[in-house]
C-alpha cells in the first residue's frame, strides 16, 4: 500500500486539536472547542476506518496479513542500531485498535458535547481528550518499543489530567495522583524490561526485536545465556514488561488506582478507563506475543494466573459495590483479566494453542463497545440523578427509556448472552482456557456467572427496584448529542460479535481456523442466565434479601465490600513504611548528619580559634618569649633532627 503516510494524520489530528485548544481553548475558542475536538477525531475515525478497510481488503487478497511500516522517522539515536524511531506500523491488531480507539473516542467526544456543556473549562477538557486520543492512537501504531513507552507515559499523563479534571475536589486530585503513581511504579518494570530486551536484542524496533528473539541468532543466545537468580534475562525482561502492562491494565495487585479513577468525568471513564487505555497492557503483551510464546512457558503462566485471579477477584468485589461507576470499574478490571489470561493460555498440554491470542483481541474489541456503552449510560444516569450511588437510583426505566434499553443491551453483551457481542468473544476465551488449563477454565466459567450476576444487580437496582418514577420531566432524557453515541454503541455491542475476527486477527497474520463454538457454549450461557436470575431475585424489587444475604456471608461480604483491604495495605506501606522509615530518615540524615558534618567542620575551626587566643596575650614579654622559643624550636628541629 503506497501513500500511507496519511496514517500519521490519524494520531496527529487529535494532537493538533490539543495544541490549538490548549493554547486558545480557555478563552477565545471556548465555545468552538467541542466542535474542533470532535471534528478532528471525526476525521481520524474516518481515516481509521478507511485504513482498516484497505488493510483487511489487502489481507483478503494476499491471503495473509502482513506487517507494514508506512512511516519511520528517527527520533533519538542512542548508538548505532539502537534508536527510537517514531514509526507507524500496521498489522491486524494495530489496525483493529485504531478503529476501536478512534471510534470510541469519537463517541465520547460527541457524548461530551452534551454532558460537559456549560463547564468553565470546556476547552481544556477537549484539549485533554485530544491529547489522550493522540497518545492512545500513537501507542497502538508504535513500531518501536521505546516509542510505545513514550505514548504509554503520555496516556498515563492524559489520564492523570482527566481524572484530575475536577481539580478542586480533593478526592479527584488524590485519585489522579494515585493513578499516575501506581502506573508509574509499574512502568518502572516496563522500562527495565525494555532495557534488558533492547540491550540484548540490540534493537528497539519491534519487528527486528521479535525476529531476533524468536529465531536462532547471537542476540537470542546472549539473552538466554545471561541469567539472574537462575532465571534467564529474557524471562526477566518479559515479566518486567508484563508488570508494566499489568499496571496500566489494572491487574491485581496493581489495580487499586482504577476504581478511584472514576473521579473523572464519566465520558472520560468510558474512554480511558474502560475501552482504551486500560487495555493497553493487553495490547502490549499481544504486541510481544511471539517472544512470550518463545520464551520460558513459566512467563505466560504468570500472565495466565494473574489474569485469571484478577478476573475473579474483581468480579467478587464488583458484586458488593454500591457506586455505579465503581461496579463498572471492577467489571472492567475483571474483563481485562479475562483478556489477559486468554493470552496466557498458550501452552496447552504440549501443543501450541494460539486461539487465546485471537480470543483476547476479540474480547478487547467487543468489550470496548459494550463497556463504553455502559459507562456512557451511567453518564446519562448520573447526569440525571446527580449521584453515583445506587441507593439514590431505582425505577429509572420510564424516565430514561433509551438509556434503559442501551444499558440492557450492554448488560446482556457483557454477561455473554447470545447473540450479543460479548457472547462470542467470551466463549472463545473460555474455549482457549479449556484447552489450556482446566483450573483456569473453571475460574473463568465461575467469573462469567458472577459477571452476569453483578451486572444485572446493577441493572435491576438502577432501573427497577422502586416504582417507576417520573420526577422532573420538564427536561427530556438527554440531549441528542448524548443519545446518538448510545445508539451507535448499542448497535456495536449487538453486532460486533459477528465480525469474522479470527479470520484476520491472528498472531502470525495467517487466517485462523475459526473454531466453532457450538455446544461448548451451553454451560457458560446457563451460568450467565443463572446469575441474571439470581440478580433479579435479589434486586428486582425492593426487599430485605440483599441485606440478609450480606449478613449470611458475614466476613466475606465485609471483606469484599472493603475491596479486600488492598488499599489499606498499600497506604500502610507507603505512608507508614516508605515515608516514615525511608523518607523521613533520609531528610533527617541530610540535615543533621551530612550537613551537620559540614557545620561541625566549621564549628571545630571556630572552637580551635577560640582555644588559641591566649597565645596573643597582649604582654610584650610573652611575645619575646615566644619569639625566642620559636628560634629555639627551629634550631632544634632543623639542626639536630633533620640533618
Amino acid at each position, binding site marked *: 500500500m503506497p501513500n500511507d503516510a496519511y496514517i500519521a494524520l490519524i494520531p496527529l489530528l487529535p494532537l493538533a486539536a490539543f495544541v490549538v485548544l490548549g493554547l486558545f481553548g480557555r478563552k477565545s475558542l471556548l465555545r468552538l472547542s467541542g466542535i474542533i475536538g470532535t471534528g478532528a477525531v471525526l476525521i481520524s475515525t474516518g481515516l481509521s476506518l478507511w485504513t482498516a478497510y484497505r488493510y483487511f481488503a489487502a489481507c483478503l487478497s494476499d491471503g495473509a496479513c502482513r506487517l507494514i511500516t508506512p512511516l519511520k522517522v528517527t527520533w533519538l539515536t542512542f548508538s548505532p542500531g539502537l534508536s527510537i524511531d517514531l514509526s507507524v506500523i500496521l498489522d491486524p491488531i494495530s489496525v483493529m485498535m485504531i478503529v476501536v480507539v478512534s471510534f470510541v473516542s469519537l463517541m465520547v467526544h460527541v457524548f461530551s458535547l452534551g454532558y460537559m456543556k456549560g463547564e468553565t473549562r470546556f476547552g481544556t477538557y477537549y484539549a485533554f481528550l485530544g491529547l489522550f486520543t493522540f497518545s492512545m492512537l500513537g501507542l497502538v501504531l508504535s513500531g518501536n518499543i521505546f516509542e510505545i513507552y513514550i505514548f504509554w507515559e503520555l496516556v498515563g499523563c492524559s489520564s492523570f489530567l482527566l481524572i484530575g479534571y475536577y481539580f478542586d475536589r480533593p478526592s479527584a486530585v488524590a485519585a489522579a495522583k494515585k493513578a499516575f503513581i501506581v502506573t508509574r511504579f509499574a512502568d518502572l518494570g516496563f522500562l527495565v524490561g525494555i532495557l534488558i530486551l533492547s540491550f540484548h536484542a540490540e534493537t528497539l524496533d519491534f519487528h527486528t526485536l521479535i525476529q531476533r528473539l524468536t529465531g536462532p541468532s547471537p542476540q537470542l543466545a546472549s539473552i538466554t545465556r545471561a541469567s539472574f537468580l537462575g532465571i534467564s534475562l529474557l524471562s526477566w525482561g518479559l515479566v518486567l514488561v508484563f508488570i508494566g502492562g499489568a499496571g496500566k491494565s489494572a491487574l491485581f495487585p496493581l489495580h487499586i488506582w482504577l476504581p478511584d479513577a472514576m473521579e473523572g468525568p464519566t465520558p472520560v471513564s468510558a474512554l480511558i478507563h474502560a475501552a482504551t487505555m486500560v487495555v493497553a497492557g493487553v495490547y502490549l503483551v499481544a504486541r510481544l506475543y511471539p517472544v512470550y510464546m518463545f520464551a520460558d512457558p513459566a512467563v505466560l503462566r504468570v500472565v495466565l494466573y494473574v489474569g485469571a485471579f484478577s478476573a475473579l477477584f474483581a468480579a467478587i468485589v464488583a458484586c458488593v459495590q454500591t457506586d455505579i461507576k465503581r461496579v463498572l470499574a471492577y467489571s472492567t478490571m475483571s474483563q481485562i483479566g479475562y483478556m489477559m489470561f486468554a493470552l496466557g493460555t498458550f501452552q496447552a498440554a504440549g501443543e501450541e494453542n494460539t486461539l487465546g491470542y485471537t480470543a483476547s483481541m476479540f474480547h478487547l474489541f467487543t468489550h470496548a463497545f459494550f463497556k463504553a456503552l455502559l459507562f456512557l449510560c451511567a453518564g446519562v444516569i448520573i447526569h440525571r440523578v446527580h449521584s453515583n450511588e445506587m441507593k439514590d437510583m431505582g425505577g429509572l426505566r420510564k424516565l430514561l427509556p433509551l438509556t434503559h434499553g442501551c444499558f440492557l443491551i450492554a448488560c446482556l453483551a457483557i454477561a455473554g448472552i447470545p447473540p450479543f457481542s460479548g457472547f462470542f468473544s467470551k466463549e472463545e476465551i473460555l474455549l482457549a482456557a479449556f484447552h489450556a488449563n482446566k483450573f483456569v477454565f473453571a475460574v473463568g466459567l465461575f467469573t462469567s456467572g458472577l459477571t452476569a450476576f453483578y451486572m444485572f444487580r446493577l441493572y435491576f437496582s438502577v432501573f427497577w427496584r422502586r416504582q417507576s418514577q417520573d420526577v422532573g420531566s420538564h427536561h427530556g432524557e438527554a440531549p441528542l448529542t448524548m443519545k446518538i453515541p448510545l445508539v451507535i454503541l448499542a448497535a456495536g455491542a449487538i453486532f460486533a460479535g459477528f465480525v469474522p475476527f479470527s479470520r484476520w486477527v491472528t498472531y502470525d497474520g495467517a487466517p485462523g481456523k475459526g473454531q466453532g463454538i457450538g455446544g461448548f457454549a451451553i454451560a457458560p450461557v446457563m451460568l450467565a442466565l443463572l446469575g441474571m436470575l439470581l440478580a433479579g431475585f435479589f434486586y428486582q424489587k425492593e426487599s430485605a434479601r440483599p441485606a440478609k444475604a450480606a449478613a449470611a456471608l458475614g466476613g466475606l461480604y465485609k471483606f469484599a465490600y472493603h475491596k479486600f483491604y488492598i488499599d489499606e495495605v498499600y497506604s500502610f506501606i507507603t505512608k507508614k513504611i516508605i515515608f516514615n522509615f525511608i523518607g523521613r530518615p533520609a531528610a533527617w540524615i541530610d540535615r543533621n548528619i551530612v550537613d551537620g558534618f559540614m557545620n561541625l567542620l566549621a564549628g571545630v575551626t571556630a572552637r580551635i580559634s*577560640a582555644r588559641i587566643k591566649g597565645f*596573643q596575650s597582649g604582654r610584650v614579654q610573652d611575645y619575646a618569649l615566644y619569639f625566642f622559643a*620559636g628560634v629555639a624550636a627551629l634550631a632544634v628541629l632543623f*639542626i639536630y633532627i633533620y640533618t
Partner: protein
Amino acid sequence: MWAGFIFSLRQELIVTGIIFLLLFIKVGATEYKTAVILNLVNGLLLANFILGFIGCQDSILFSGMFHTNKLLVLEKNILNLGTLIISLQAYDWLKGHRQVLEFYLLLLATLVGFFFMISAGNLLMFYLGLELSTIPLAALSSFDLEKRQSSEAAMKFIMSSAFSSALLLFGISLLYGATGTLDFDTIGQRLDGSAFQLFAFILLLSGFAFKISVVPFHLWTADVYEGSPVTVSAYLSVISKGAVFFVFIQVLYTVFKPLAANWYRILVLLSILTMVTGNLFALRQDKLKRLLAFSSIAQSGFILAGITGSSRTGDASVIYFILVYIFSNLGAFGVVSLISAQTGKEGIDDYKGLYATNPLLSWVMAISLFSLAGIPPTAGFFGKFFLLMAGVGKGNYVFIGIAALNMVISLYYYLRVIKAIFMESQPEPIGKLTIPFLPNLAFLICVAGIIMTGLMGWVYDYIYSLSIGL
C-alpha cells in the same frame, strides 16, 4: 663618575631630597598651611614615582655595599607607588593633625631605609637600612600622641623590634664568625651547611620573619596594627612587609643558595604555621584593623609558599603578589582610614549598613577584600594562583593542599565584613561621608590596579623578565 653615582642612587637621593626640603620648611617657615603641605608632598611623591621609571644600568657602588639593577629599581618603584597611595589616603587624617611635616619626615626616612636595605650588598648595609626604617616606624606608631593605644603599640613595636634586631645581630655576628665576611657574595661562597652556620642562619631568619610577621614571630603585629594610626598600619602591612620580602627572597635565592634544602623545609613549616594561625585568629576578630592584621599574617604565609618554589616563577610571583597586595590591602586600609578619620569607628559591627549610605566606599572595600581573598576577576586571584603554582613546583602537593584549604578559611572572614556591609543593618549606620579628592584618587588607583593588574598579563611578564631563580 659623579653622574653615574647620582644616577645609580637617584631614587634614594630624590627621597632624601624631599626629606631635606621638608626639613627646611619645618625649620624655616614659621607658619604654613597643612593642606598646601599635603598637596606639595603628594605632588613630590608622584614626581618621585614617575622619575623612578627612568631606565638604569646595573651598577655596584661603595665597593659592593650598594647594588642596583632593574629588578631592584622596580621593587623600589613598587614601594614608591605604595607610599604615594598611603600618602594620598592619609589626607583626611593628616589634615587635622598638627605635625604633618614630622610625619612625612619619619615616613620618608623609613622609605630611604628600605631602599638601602633592598640595595644592600653587605650585611652591614642591610642592618643599617633595616634600622633606619624600623626606628622611625616605631615613632610613627605612636603618632597619635594622646591616644593610649597608639603609645602602647609603639612600645610593643620598639621593644619587640629591638629584641628581634638583637637576635638578628647575634646571628650576623655568628655568621661573621663562621665565614669571616659580611659581603653577600662572599658569604654565599663560604657556606657549608654546618650546624653553627645553620644556627646563625636561623637567627638571621628570625629577624626577617619578625618583620614579615611570620608565626611564631608575629605576635606584635596585631597589637601594633590595632594601636597605630590606620595610615601607619597600612604602611607597616604593605611597604614594610613588602620591602623585607624583597630582601628576604633576594637573600635566600642568592646568599643562602647553598642552604636551599634547609631553608626550604623551614619555610614550608613556617608557611603552614603562618597561614593557619593567621586565619584562625582572623576568624574571630571584631575590629577591622585587627582582622586586617591577621589577614596580613596569613598573606605572609602564602607569600612564603611562593618563595618555597625556589624558582624564577617563585621570585616573579612574590614580587607580583606584593604589587597586587599593595593595591588590595591599601584599598581596604584606605576605607578603614577614611571612616576612622571621619567617624572614629573601626569595628566590623559599625560597618553594618554601610552600603546604604556609602556605596562607593563599600564597593572599594568589597573589591579589595575579594582581591585579598583571591577571587577573580581581581588581581588577588592571579597573585595567589601564581604563588601557589610556584610553591607546588617542588611537587609538595600536601603543602599546597593545606594552602588551598586556608584560602577557603580566609574567605570566611573577608565575607563576614562584606556581609556586614551589604547585608546587615543597624539602627545608627555610618552617615554619608564626603571623600576628598586625594583619597578618591587613591581609591581609583587601587581599584584600577586590582582590576587591571590581573587581566593584563604584561605586568607579570615584565617582572618575570627581571626576576631571578635559584
